[in-house]
Protein backbone atom coordinates (compact mmCIF):
# COMPACT_ATOMS: atom_id res chain seq x y z
CA UNK A 1 0.00 0.00 0.00
CA UNK A 2 2.73 2.41 1.05
CA UNK A 3 4.72 1.57 -2.06
CA UNK A 4 1.64 2.11 -4.19
CA UNK A 5 0.97 5.55 -2.65
CA UNK A 6 4.57 6.66 -2.93
CA UNK A 7 4.65 5.63 -6.58
CA UNK A 8 1.37 7.44 -7.14
CA UNK A 9 2.68 10.63 -5.51
CA UNK A 10 5.91 10.40 -7.46
CA UNK A 11 3.94 10.11 -10.69
CA UNK A 12 1.95 13.24 -9.87
CA UNK A 13 5.10 15.17 -9.00
CA UNK A 14 6.84 14.10 -12.19
CA UNK A 15 3.80 15.06 -14.24
CA UNK A 16 3.70 18.45 -12.56
CA UNK A 17 7.38 19.10 -13.15
CA UNK A 18 7.00 18.32 -16.82
CA UNK A 19 3.91 20.51 -17.04
CA UNK A 20 5.79 23.36 -15.34
CA UNK A 21 8.71 23.07 -17.74
CA UNK A 22 6.54 23.18 -20.83
CA UNK A 23 4.42 25.97 -19.40
CA UNK A 24 7.61 28.03 -19.05
CA UNK A 25 8.70 27.25 -22.61
CA UNK A 26 5.32 28.19 -24.05
CA UNK A 27 5.05 31.31 -21.90
CA UNK A 28 8.48 32.59 -22.89
CA UNK A 29 7.93 31.73 -26.55
CA UNK A 30 4.60 33.52 -26.61
CA UNK A 31 6.12 36.52 -24.87
CA UNK A 32 8.90 36.81 -27.46
CA UNK A 33 6.41 36.51 -30.30
CA UNK A 34 4.08 39.06 -28.78
CA UNK A 35 6.90 41.54 -28.08
CA UNK A 36 8.11 41.24 -31.65
CA UNK A 37 4.60 41.76 -32.97
CA UNK A 38 4.28 44.93 -30.91
CA UNK A 39 7.53 46.32 -32.33
CA UNK A 40 6.50 45.54 -35.89
CA UNK A 41 3.05 47.07 -35.39
CA UNK A 42 4.51 50.20 -33.85
CA UNK A 43 7.37 50.85 -36.25
CA UNK A 44 5.80 49.81 -39.53
CA UNK A 45 2.10 50.32 -39.03
CA UNK A 46 2.19 53.06 -36.37
CA UNK A 47 -0.29 51.13 -34.27
CA UNK A 48 -0.17 48.57 -31.48
CA UNK A 49 -2.14 47.18 -28.60
CA UNK A 50 -2.48 49.71 -25.79
CA UNK A 51 -2.40 47.05 -23.12
CA UNK A 52 0.47 45.22 -24.82
CA UNK A 53 3.14 46.62 -22.55
CA UNK A 54 1.15 45.76 -19.44
CA UNK A 55 0.75 42.20 -20.70
CA UNK A 56 4.49 41.87 -21.37
CA UNK A 57 5.43 43.13 -17.92
CA UNK A 58 3.01 40.73 -16.26
CA UNK A 59 4.31 37.93 -18.45
CA UNK A 60 7.80 38.61 -17.14
CA UNK A 61 6.42 38.57 -13.60
CA UNK A 62 4.85 35.16 -14.20
CA UNK A 63 8.02 33.77 -15.72
CA UNK A 64 10.11 35.16 -12.86
CA UNK A 65 7.99 33.63 -10.13
CA UNK A 66 7.66 30.31 -11.90
CA UNK A 67 11.42 30.49 -12.50
CA UNK A 68 11.98 31.09 -8.81
CA UNK A 69 9.89 28.03 -7.94
CA UNK A 70 11.87 26.05 -10.48
CA UNK A 71 15.06 27.33 -8.85
CA UNK A 72 13.73 25.96 -5.57
CA UNK A 73 13.35 22.53 -7.14
CA UNK A 74 16.81 22.54 -8.70
CA UNK A 75 18.48 24.15 -5.63
CA UNK A 76 19.71 27.05 -7.69
CA UNK A 77 18.62 30.00 -5.57
CA UNK A 78 21.22 32.70 -4.96
CA UNK A 79 22.66 32.25 -1.49
CA UNK A 80 25.75 32.78 0.62
CA UNK A 81 26.83 29.32 1.63
CA UNK A 82 29.80 30.36 3.69
CA UNK A 83 29.20 28.29 6.84
CA UNK A 84 28.50 24.94 5.12
CA UNK A 85 31.91 25.24 3.47
CA UNK A 86 33.81 25.66 6.73
CA UNK A 87 31.70 23.63 9.15
CA UNK A 88 32.20 19.88 9.56
CA UNK A 89 29.86 17.78 7.40
CA UNK A 90 27.53 16.82 10.24
CA UNK A 91 27.04 20.43 11.37
CA UNK A 92 26.47 21.76 7.89
CA UNK A 93 23.91 19.03 7.33
CA UNK A 94 21.98 20.29 10.35
CA UNK A 95 22.30 23.91 9.18
CA UNK A 96 21.01 22.88 5.78
CA UNK A 97 18.12 21.04 7.37
CA UNK A 98 17.15 24.06 9.49
CA UNK A 99 17.40 26.36 6.46
CA UNK A 100 14.93 24.18 4.60
CA UNK A 101 12.53 24.31 7.51
CA UNK A 102 12.77 28.08 7.97
CA UNK A 103 12.46 28.67 4.21
CA UNK A 104 9.35 26.49 4.28
CA UNK A 105 7.88 28.63 7.08
CA UNK A 106 8.68 31.92 5.34
CA UNK A 107 7.09 30.69 2.10
CA UNK A 108 3.97 29.61 3.98
CA UNK A 109 3.68 33.10 5.47
CA UNK A 110 4.28 34.64 2.02
CA UNK A 111 1.59 32.39 0.60
CA UNK A 112 -0.82 33.56 3.27
CA UNK A 113 0.07 37.22 2.73
CA UNK A 114 -0.33 36.95 -1.04
CA UNK A 115 -3.60 35.09 -0.67
CA UNK A 116 -4.97 37.98 1.38
CA UNK A 117 -3.62 40.43 -1.18
CA UNK A 118 -5.37 38.64 -4.03
CA UNK A 119 -8.61 38.44 -2.04
CA UNK A 120 -8.48 42.17 -1.50
CA UNK A 121 -7.87 42.80 -5.20
CA UNK A 122 -10.75 40.52 -6.14
CA UNK A 123 -13.12 42.57 -4.03
CA UNK A 124 -11.75 45.80 -5.50
CA UNK A 125 -12.50 44.36 -8.95
CA UNK A 126 -10.13 46.31 -11.22
CA UNK A 127 -9.52 44.96 -14.70
CA UNK A 128 -6.15 44.73 -16.43
CA UNK A 129 -5.39 44.24 -20.12
CA UNK A 130 -8.02 42.70 -22.41
CA UNK A 131 -10.61 43.06 -19.61
CA UNK A 132 -8.99 40.32 -17.55
CA UNK A 133 -9.47 41.03 -13.83
CA UNK A 134 -6.19 42.04 -12.15
CA UNK A 135 -6.56 39.43 -9.44
CA UNK A 136 -6.28 36.67 -12.05
CA UNK A 137 -2.78 37.74 -13.04
CA UNK A 138 -1.88 38.34 -9.40
CA UNK A 139 -2.79 34.74 -8.58
CA UNK A 140 0.76 33.84 -9.59
CA UNK A 141 1.96 35.04 -6.17
CA UNK A 142 0.02 32.54 -4.03
CA UNK A 143 0.59 29.82 -6.66
CA UNK A 144 4.34 30.44 -6.75
CA UNK A 145 4.76 30.66 -2.99
CA UNK A 146 2.65 27.53 -2.48
CA UNK A 147 4.90 25.58 -4.88
CA UNK A 148 8.02 26.94 -3.18
CA UNK A 149 6.65 26.11 0.28
CA UNK A 150 5.90 22.56 -0.86
CA UNK A 151 9.35 22.14 -2.33
CA UNK A 152 11.13 23.47 0.75
CA UNK A 153 8.83 21.22 2.78
CA UNK A 154 9.86 18.20 0.69
CA UNK A 155 13.53 19.06 1.13
CA UNK A 156 12.96 19.29 4.86
CA UNK A 157 11.16 15.94 5.01
CA UNK A 158 13.83 14.24 2.94
CA UNK A 159 16.31 15.79 5.40
CA UNK A 160 14.44 13.95 8.17
CA UNK A 161 15.22 10.65 6.50
CA UNK A 162 18.81 11.69 6.01
CA UNK A 163 19.09 13.08 2.51
CA UNK A 164 20.68 16.45 1.81
CA UNK A 165 18.14 19.20 1.22
CA UNK A 166 19.44 22.58 0.20
CA UNK A 167 22.71 21.44 -1.29
CA UNK A 168 23.20 20.79 -4.96
CA UNK A 169 21.71 17.54 -6.12
Amino acid at each position, binding site marked *: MAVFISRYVKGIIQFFEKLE*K*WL*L*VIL*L*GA*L*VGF*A*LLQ*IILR*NFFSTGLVWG*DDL*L*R*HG*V*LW*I*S*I*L*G*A*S*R*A*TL*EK*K*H*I*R*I*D*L*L*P*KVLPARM*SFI*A*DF*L*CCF*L*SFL*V*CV*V*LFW*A*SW*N*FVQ*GERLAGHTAFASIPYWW*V*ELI*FPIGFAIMALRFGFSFVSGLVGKPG*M*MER
Partner: protein
Amino acid sequence: MKTALFTLLAILMAFSGAPLFVVISAAALFCFYLIGVDISIVVIEMYRLAANPLLIALLFFAFAGYVLAESGAGQRLVKLSTAIFGCVRGGLAVVALLSCAFFTALTGASGITIVALGGLLLPALLKERYPENFSLGLLTSSGSLGLLFPPSLPMIIYGVVAGVSIPKLFLAGLIPGIFLLALLVGYSVYRGVRGECRIITFDRQELLQTSRETIWEILLPVVVFGGIYSGFLAVSEAAVVTLVYVLVVALAINRDVKLHQMPSTIGKTVIMVGSIIIILGASLALNSFLIDQQIPNRVLLWIQSHVHSKFFFLIILNVFLLLVGCILDVYSALVIVAPLVIPVAQGYDLNLLHLGIIFLTNLQIGYSTPPIGMNLFIASLRFDKSIIRLGVASLPFLGILLVALLVITYVPALSLLLVR
Protein backbone atom coordinates in the same frame (compact mmCIF):
# COMPACT_ATOMS: atom_id res chain seq x y z
CA MET B 1 15.38 42.22 22.26
CA LYS B 2 13.01 40.65 19.75
CA THR B 3 14.69 42.60 16.97
CA ALA B 4 18.20 41.62 18.06
CA LEU B 5 17.24 37.97 18.23
CA PHE B 6 15.63 38.09 14.82
CA THR B 7 18.61 39.88 13.25
CA LEU B 8 20.94 37.28 14.65
CA LEU B 9 18.80 34.44 13.33
CA ALA B 10 18.48 36.08 9.89
CA ILE B 11 22.23 36.57 9.57
CA LEU B 12 22.88 33.02 10.72
CA MET B 13 20.37 31.74 8.20
CA ALA B 14 21.88 33.79 5.39
CA PHE B 15 25.37 32.50 6.06
CA SER B 16 24.23 28.89 6.41
CA GLY B 17 22.97 28.93 2.87
CA ALA B 18 19.28 29.80 3.06
CA PRO B 19 18.16 31.40 -0.23
CA LEU B 20 18.68 35.16 0.03
CA PHE B 21 15.16 35.95 -1.11
CA VAL B 22 13.85 33.95 1.87
CA VAL B 23 16.04 35.86 4.31
CA ILE B 24 15.11 39.26 2.86
CA SER B 25 11.41 38.39 2.69
CA ALA B 26 11.55 37.21 6.29
CA ALA B 27 13.15 40.50 7.30
CA ALA B 28 10.49 42.49 5.43
CA LEU B 29 7.65 40.45 6.93
CA PHE B 30 9.10 40.82 10.41
CA CYS B 31 9.67 44.58 10.11
CA PHE B 32 6.15 45.33 8.89
CA TYR B 33 4.67 43.00 11.48
CA LEU B 34 6.62 44.81 14.18
CA ILE B 35 5.22 48.24 13.30
CA GLY B 36 1.73 46.73 13.08
CA VAL B 37 1.18 46.93 9.30
CA ASP B 38 -0.74 44.15 7.53
CA ILE B 39 1.95 41.89 6.08
CA SER B 40 0.17 41.70 2.73
CA ILE B 41 2.10 44.92 2.09
CA VAL B 42 5.14 42.74 1.39
CA VAL B 43 3.41 41.14 -1.59
CA ILE B 44 1.96 44.48 -2.71
CA GLU B 45 5.50 45.87 -2.82
CA MET B 46 6.73 42.79 -4.68
CA TYR B 47 3.99 43.39 -7.22
CA ARG B 48 5.79 46.61 -8.19
CA LEU B 49 8.01 44.25 -10.22
CA ALA B 50 5.23 44.18 -12.81
CA ALA B 51 5.54 47.95 -13.26
CA ASN B 52 9.09 47.89 -14.55
CA PRO B 53 9.62 47.53 -18.30
CA LEU B 54 13.38 46.99 -17.81
CA LEU B 55 12.80 43.52 -16.46
CA ILE B 56 11.58 42.57 -19.94
CA ALA B 57 15.02 43.61 -21.21
CA LEU B 58 16.68 41.59 -18.46
CA LEU B 59 14.78 38.42 -19.41
CA PHE B 60 15.37 38.71 -23.16
CA PHE B 61 19.04 39.69 -22.92
CA ALA B 62 19.60 36.80 -20.53
CA PHE B 63 17.93 34.37 -22.93
CA ALA B 64 19.97 35.72 -25.85
CA GLY B 65 23.10 35.24 -23.73
CA TYR B 66 22.29 31.62 -22.95
CA VAL B 67 21.60 30.87 -26.62
CA LEU B 68 24.94 32.45 -27.56
CA ALA B 69 26.68 30.40 -24.91
CA GLU B 70 25.17 27.19 -26.33
CA SER B 71 26.19 28.11 -29.86
CA GLY B 72 29.70 28.08 -31.23
CA ALA B 73 29.97 31.87 -30.92
CA GLY B 74 32.70 31.65 -28.27
CA GLN B 75 34.93 29.40 -30.34
CA ARG B 76 34.46 31.56 -33.43
CA LEU B 77 35.36 34.70 -31.49
CA VAL B 78 38.53 33.11 -30.19
CA LYS B 79 39.46 31.94 -33.69
CA LEU B 80 38.89 35.35 -35.21
CA SER B 81 40.84 37.27 -32.58
CA THR B 82 43.68 34.75 -32.80
CA ALA B 83 43.86 35.39 -36.54
CA ILE B 84 44.09 39.12 -35.82
CA PHE B 85 46.32 39.31 -32.73
CA GLY B 86 48.09 35.96 -32.68
CA CYS B 87 51.02 37.26 -34.69
CA VAL B 88 52.26 39.79 -32.09
CA ARG B 89 54.08 38.95 -28.86
CA GLY B 90 51.58 38.62 -26.04
CA GLY B 91 48.89 38.51 -28.67
CA LEU B 92 47.26 35.35 -27.45
CA ALA B 93 46.78 36.86 -23.98
CA VAL B 94 45.12 39.81 -25.67
CA VAL B 95 42.92 37.36 -27.54
CA ALA B 96 41.87 35.82 -24.24
CA LEU B 97 41.08 39.19 -22.68
CA LEU B 98 39.13 40.57 -25.61
CA SER B 99 37.09 37.48 -26.32
CA CYS B 100 36.29 37.03 -22.62
CA ALA B 101 35.20 40.66 -22.30
CA PHE B 102 33.04 40.48 -25.40
CA PHE B 103 31.50 37.18 -24.40
CA THR B 104 30.83 38.25 -20.81
CA ALA B 105 29.14 41.45 -21.92
CA LEU B 106 26.74 39.40 -24.01
CA THR B 107 26.15 36.58 -21.57
CA GLY B 108 26.01 38.57 -18.36
CA ALA B 109 28.89 37.47 -16.16
CA SER B 110 27.28 34.40 -14.72
CA GLY B 111 30.36 32.26 -14.99
CA ILE B 112 29.53 31.10 -18.49
CA THR B 113 32.65 32.75 -19.90
CA ILE B 114 35.05 30.56 -17.94
CA VAL B 115 33.07 27.44 -18.78
CA ALA B 116 32.66 28.23 -22.47
CA LEU B 117 36.01 29.86 -23.28
CA GLY B 118 38.34 28.77 -20.48
CA GLY B 119 38.72 25.21 -21.67
CA LEU B 120 39.57 26.52 -25.10
CA LEU B 121 41.97 29.28 -24.11
CA LEU B 122 43.98 27.61 -21.35
CA PRO B 123 45.58 24.90 -23.52
CA ALA B 124 46.18 27.46 -26.27
CA LEU B 125 48.00 29.80 -23.86
CA LEU B 126 50.07 26.98 -22.39
CA LYS B 127 50.98 25.73 -25.85
CA GLU B 128 52.46 29.12 -26.73
CA ARG B 129 54.53 28.91 -23.52
CA TYR B 130 52.71 31.40 -21.36
CA PRO B 131 53.48 30.63 -17.69
CA GLU B 132 50.77 28.45 -16.16
CA ASN B 133 50.08 30.74 -13.22
CA PHE B 134 49.78 33.75 -15.48
CA SER B 135 47.35 31.91 -17.76
CA LEU B 136 45.23 30.63 -14.88
CA GLY B 137 45.09 34.07 -13.27
CA LEU B 138 44.23 35.72 -16.54
CA LEU B 139 41.35 33.38 -17.31
CA THR B 140 40.03 33.38 -13.75
CA SER B 141 39.86 37.15 -13.51
CA SER B 142 38.58 37.52 -17.07
CA GLY B 143 35.40 35.69 -16.16
CA SER B 144 33.77 38.96 -15.14
CA LEU B 145 35.64 41.33 -17.40
CA GLY B 146 32.79 42.51 -19.60
CA LEU B 147 30.61 43.82 -16.77
CA LEU B 148 31.04 47.43 -17.87
CA PHE B 149 30.16 46.75 -21.49
CA PRO B 150 26.56 46.78 -22.69
CA PRO B 151 24.24 44.94 -22.57
CA SER B 152 25.59 43.56 -19.29
CA LEU B 153 22.76 42.31 -17.11
CA PRO B 154 24.18 43.74 -13.85
CA MET B 155 24.11 47.17 -15.50
CA ILE B 156 20.42 46.75 -16.24
CA ILE B 157 19.79 45.72 -12.64
CA TYR B 158 21.63 48.81 -11.38
CA GLY B 159 19.51 50.91 -13.74
CA VAL B 160 16.37 49.34 -12.29
CA VAL B 161 17.42 49.96 -8.69
CA ALA B 162 18.85 53.46 -9.17
CA GLY B 163 16.23 54.58 -11.66
CA VAL B 164 18.80 55.93 -14.13
CA SER B 165 18.54 55.80 -17.91
CA ILE B 166 19.96 52.56 -19.32
CA PRO B 167 21.23 54.03 -22.61
CA LYS B 168 23.17 56.64 -20.60
CA LEU B 169 24.48 53.99 -18.23
CA PHE B 170 25.68 51.91 -21.18
CA LEU B 171 27.57 54.94 -22.51
CA ALA B 172 29.03 55.73 -19.09
CA GLY B 173 30.53 52.25 -18.85
CA LEU B 174 32.25 52.37 -22.20
CA ILE B 175 35.40 54.40 -21.45
CA PRO B 176 36.03 52.90 -17.99
CA GLY B 177 35.57 49.45 -19.51
CA ILE B 178 38.04 50.15 -22.29
CA PHE B 179 40.47 51.70 -19.81
CA LEU B 180 40.33 48.64 -17.57
CA LEU B 181 40.80 46.34 -20.52
CA ALA B 182 43.72 48.44 -21.80
CA LEU B 183 45.56 48.13 -18.48
CA LEU B 184 45.17 44.35 -18.52
CA VAL B 185 46.21 44.17 -22.17
CA GLY B 186 49.31 46.23 -21.37
CA TYR B 187 50.31 43.90 -18.55
CA SER B 188 49.67 40.79 -20.66
CA VAL B 189 51.71 42.06 -23.58
CA TYR B 190 54.53 42.92 -21.15
CA ARG B 191 54.44 39.38 -19.74
CA GLY B 192 54.23 37.90 -23.22
CA VAL B 193 57.22 39.86 -24.47
CA ARG B 194 59.31 39.20 -21.36
CA GLY B 195 58.41 35.51 -21.30
CA GLU B 196 59.32 35.21 -24.98
CA CYS B 197 56.11 33.43 -25.70
CA ARG B 198 55.72 32.06 -29.17
CA ILE B 199 53.72 33.79 -31.83
CA ILE B 200 51.61 32.51 -34.67
CA THR B 201 52.46 33.51 -38.23
CA PHE B 202 49.94 35.85 -39.76
CA ASP B 203 47.72 34.15 -42.30
CA ARG B 204 45.59 36.37 -44.50
CA GLN B 205 43.49 33.50 -45.76
CA GLU B 206 42.73 32.38 -42.21
CA LEU B 207 41.74 35.92 -41.22
CA LEU B 208 39.36 36.23 -44.15
CA GLN B 209 37.80 32.88 -43.50
CA THR B 210 37.28 33.37 -39.77
CA SER B 211 35.84 36.84 -40.38
CA ARG B 212 33.35 35.34 -42.75
CA GLU B 213 32.40 32.69 -40.18
CA THR B 214 32.06 35.24 -37.40
CA ILE B 215 30.27 37.94 -39.38
CA TRP B 216 26.94 37.43 -37.56
CA GLU B 217 28.51 37.83 -34.14
CA ILE B 218 30.48 40.89 -35.31
CA LEU B 219 27.22 42.52 -36.38
CA LEU B 220 25.60 41.81 -33.03
CA PRO B 221 26.66 45.07 -31.31
CA VAL B 222 25.17 46.97 -34.25
CA VAL B 223 21.86 45.22 -33.62
CA VAL B 224 22.00 45.92 -29.87
CA PHE B 225 22.95 49.59 -30.11
CA GLY B 226 21.58 50.57 -33.48
CA GLY B 227 18.03 50.41 -32.24
CA ILE B 228 18.66 52.12 -28.91
CA TYR B 229 20.81 55.03 -30.03
CA SER B 230 18.97 55.72 -33.26
CA GLY B 231 15.94 56.30 -31.06
CA PHE B 232 13.84 53.68 -32.82
CA LEU B 233 13.67 51.20 -29.96
CA ALA B 234 13.33 51.33 -26.21
CA VAL B 235 15.82 49.19 -24.25
CA SER B 236 13.28 46.41 -23.75
CA GLU B 237 12.49 46.41 -27.47
CA ALA B 238 16.18 46.33 -28.37
CA ALA B 239 16.43 43.25 -26.16
CA VAL B 240 13.63 41.57 -28.10
CA VAL B 241 15.27 42.38 -31.41
CA THR B 242 18.64 41.14 -30.14
CA LEU B 243 17.07 37.91 -28.95
CA VAL B 244 15.27 37.28 -32.22
CA TYR B 245 18.46 38.05 -34.14
CA VAL B 246 20.48 35.64 -31.99
CA LEU B 247 17.82 32.94 -32.32
CA VAL B 248 17.62 33.27 -36.11
CA VAL B 249 21.41 33.19 -36.46
CA ALA B 250 21.85 30.21 -34.14
CA LEU B 251 18.89 28.14 -35.32
CA ALA B 252 18.59 28.98 -38.99
CA ILE B 253 21.83 30.45 -40.32
CA ASN B 254 24.69 28.83 -38.41
CA ARG B 255 22.55 25.92 -37.20
CA ASP B 256 24.83 25.26 -34.25
CA VAL B 257 21.94 25.22 -31.81
CA LYS B 258 19.13 22.74 -32.36
CA LEU B 259 15.49 23.39 -31.66
CA HIS B 260 15.30 20.51 -29.20
CA GLN B 261 17.92 22.25 -27.04
CA MET B 262 15.56 25.18 -26.52
CA PRO B 263 13.56 23.79 -23.57
CA SER B 264 16.69 23.26 -21.49
CA THR B 265 18.13 26.64 -22.53
CA ILE B 266 14.86 28.29 -21.56
CA GLY B 267 14.96 26.36 -18.29
CA LYS B 268 18.41 27.77 -17.44
CA THR B 269 17.40 31.30 -18.43
CA VAL B 270 14.22 31.22 -16.43
CA ILE B 271 15.94 29.90 -13.32
CA MET B 272 18.63 32.56 -13.47
CA VAL B 273 16.21 35.42 -14.15
CA GLY B 274 13.67 34.12 -11.63
CA SER B 275 16.21 33.79 -8.85
CA ILE B 276 17.43 37.37 -9.46
CA ILE B 277 14.00 38.96 -9.80
CA ILE B 278 12.53 37.29 -6.72
CA ILE B 279 15.37 38.81 -4.67
CA LEU B 280 14.64 42.14 -6.30
CA GLY B 281 10.98 41.77 -5.29
CA ALA B 282 11.81 40.89 -1.70
CA SER B 283 14.17 43.82 -1.36
CA LEU B 284 11.60 46.20 -2.87
CA ALA B 285 9.49 45.28 0.15
CA LEU B 286 12.30 45.61 2.67
CA ASN B 287 13.48 48.89 1.17
CA SER B 288 10.04 50.44 1.27
CA PHE B 289 10.07 49.74 5.01
CA LEU B 290 13.55 51.22 5.40
CA ILE B 291 12.61 54.34 3.45
CA ASP B 292 9.37 54.65 5.38
CA GLN B 293 11.41 54.62 8.59
CA GLN B 294 13.90 57.07 7.04
CA ILE B 295 16.78 54.68 7.64
CA PRO B 296 18.85 55.80 4.60
CA ASN B 297 18.58 59.41 5.79
CA ARG B 298 19.72 58.47 9.24
CA VAL B 299 22.65 56.51 7.82
CA LEU B 300 23.54 59.55 5.71
CA LEU B 301 23.43 61.91 8.69
CA TRP B 302 25.52 59.55 10.77
CA ILE B 303 28.15 59.14 8.06
CA GLN B 304 28.17 62.86 7.31
CA SER B 305 28.88 63.61 10.93
CA HIS B 306 31.98 61.43 10.75
CA VAL B 307 33.15 61.74 7.16
CA HIS B 308 33.51 65.29 5.94
CA SER B 309 35.18 65.08 2.56
CA LYS B 310 34.00 63.41 -0.62
CA PHE B 311 37.53 62.11 -1.13
CA PHE B 312 37.45 60.16 2.12
CA PHE B 313 33.88 59.01 1.57
CA LEU B 314 34.89 57.45 -1.75
CA ILE B 315 37.62 55.43 -0.04
CA ILE B 316 35.16 54.13 2.52
CA LEU B 317 32.64 53.39 -0.22
CA ASN B 318 35.17 51.35 -2.18
CA VAL B 319 36.36 49.36 0.80
CA PHE B 320 32.76 48.69 1.75
CA LEU B 321 31.81 47.59 -1.76
CA LEU B 322 34.86 45.36 -2.05
CA LEU B 323 33.83 43.63 1.17
CA VAL B 324 30.27 43.29 -0.11
CA GLY B 325 31.61 41.88 -3.37
CA CYS B 326 33.53 39.25 -1.43
CA ILE B 327 30.36 37.96 0.22
CA LEU B 328 27.53 38.59 -2.22
CA ASP B 329 27.23 37.89 -5.91
CA VAL B 330 26.83 40.89 -8.18
CA TYR B 331 23.04 40.73 -8.54
CA SER B 332 22.11 40.41 -4.89
CA ALA B 333 24.79 42.96 -3.99
CA LEU B 334 23.23 45.50 -6.35
CA VAL B 335 19.69 44.78 -5.27
CA ILE B 336 20.35 44.78 -1.54
CA VAL B 337 23.11 47.34 -1.11
CA ALA B 338 22.55 49.90 -3.86
CA PRO B 339 19.26 51.30 -2.48
CA LEU B 340 21.02 52.04 0.81
CA VAL B 341 24.16 53.48 -0.73
CA ILE B 342 22.46 55.65 -3.35
CA PRO B 343 20.91 58.25 -1.00
CA VAL B 344 24.16 58.45 0.96
CA ALA B 345 26.21 58.92 -2.20
CA GLN B 346 23.80 61.61 -3.36
CA GLY B 347 24.44 63.36 -0.05
CA TYR B 348 28.06 63.59 -1.16
CA ASP B 349 27.04 64.94 -4.54
CA LEU B 350 28.04 61.85 -6.45
CA ASN B 351 26.62 61.36 -9.95
CA LEU B 352 24.41 58.25 -10.06
CA LEU B 353 25.87 57.07 -13.37
CA HIS B 354 29.38 57.41 -11.98
CA LEU B 355 28.28 55.61 -8.82
CA GLY B 356 26.96 52.78 -10.98
CA ILE B 357 30.30 52.36 -12.68
CA ILE B 358 32.08 52.38 -9.30
CA PHE B 359 29.63 49.76 -8.07
CA LEU B 360 30.13 47.47 -11.03
CA THR B 361 33.92 47.78 -11.01
CA ASN B 362 34.03 46.87 -7.34
CA LEU B 363 31.69 43.94 -7.73
CA GLN B 364 33.65 42.72 -10.71
CA ILE B 365 36.75 42.58 -8.52
CA GLY B 366 34.70 40.78 -5.86
CA TYR B 367 34.08 38.00 -8.37
CA SER B 368 37.70 36.89 -8.07
CA THR B 369 38.27 37.40 -4.35
CA PRO B 370 37.93 34.78 -1.64
CA PRO B 371 35.96 33.47 0.19
CA ILE B 372 33.10 33.12 -2.26
CA GLY B 373 34.35 34.77 -5.45
CA MET B 374 32.34 32.97 -8.08
CA ASN B 375 35.14 33.09 -10.67
CA LEU B 376 37.40 31.16 -8.32
CA PHE B 377 34.90 28.37 -7.84
CA ILE B 378 33.96 28.02 -11.46
CA ALA B 379 37.58 28.17 -12.60
CA SER B 380 38.52 25.65 -9.94
CA LEU B 381 35.91 23.24 -11.32
CA ARG B 382 36.78 23.95 -14.93
CA PHE B 383 40.56 23.76 -14.69
CA ASP B 384 40.71 21.25 -11.84
CA LYS B 385 43.01 23.44 -9.73
CA SER B 386 42.68 24.39 -6.07
CA ILE B 387 40.93 27.63 -5.19
CA ILE B 388 43.95 28.83 -3.22
CA ARG B 389 46.23 28.39 -6.19
CA LEU B 390 43.83 30.24 -8.47
CA GLY B 391 43.48 32.99 -5.88
CA VAL B 392 47.24 33.46 -5.79
CA ALA B 393 47.47 33.32 -9.58
CA SER B 394 44.86 36.08 -9.91
CA LEU B 395 46.65 38.43 -7.50
CA PRO B 396 48.55 40.46 -10.16
CA PHE B 397 45.34 40.88 -12.11
CA LEU B 398 43.47 41.93 -8.98
CA GLY B 399 46.20 44.50 -8.35
CA ILE B 400 45.69 45.97 -11.81
CA LEU B 401 41.93 45.98 -11.37
CA LEU B 402 42.36 47.84 -8.05
CA VAL B 403 44.49 50.49 -9.74
CA ALA B 404 41.83 50.84 -12.41
CA LEU B 405 39.20 51.11 -9.69
CA LEU B 406 41.04 54.01 -8.06
CA VAL B 407 41.29 55.87 -11.33
CA ILE B 408 37.65 55.21 -12.20
CA THR B 409 36.60 56.41 -8.74
CA TYR B 410 38.61 59.62 -8.66
CA VAL B 411 38.28 60.62 -12.31
CA PRO B 412 34.53 60.91 -12.80
CA ALA B 413 35.13 62.37 -16.25
CA LEU B 414 36.05 58.88 -17.42
CA SER B 415 32.49 57.76 -16.81
CA LEU B 416 30.71 61.00 -17.62
CA LEU B 417 32.55 62.16 -20.73
CA LEU B 418 30.28 60.42 -23.23
CA VAL B 419 27.11 61.18 -21.32
CA ARG B 420 27.32 64.94 -21.34
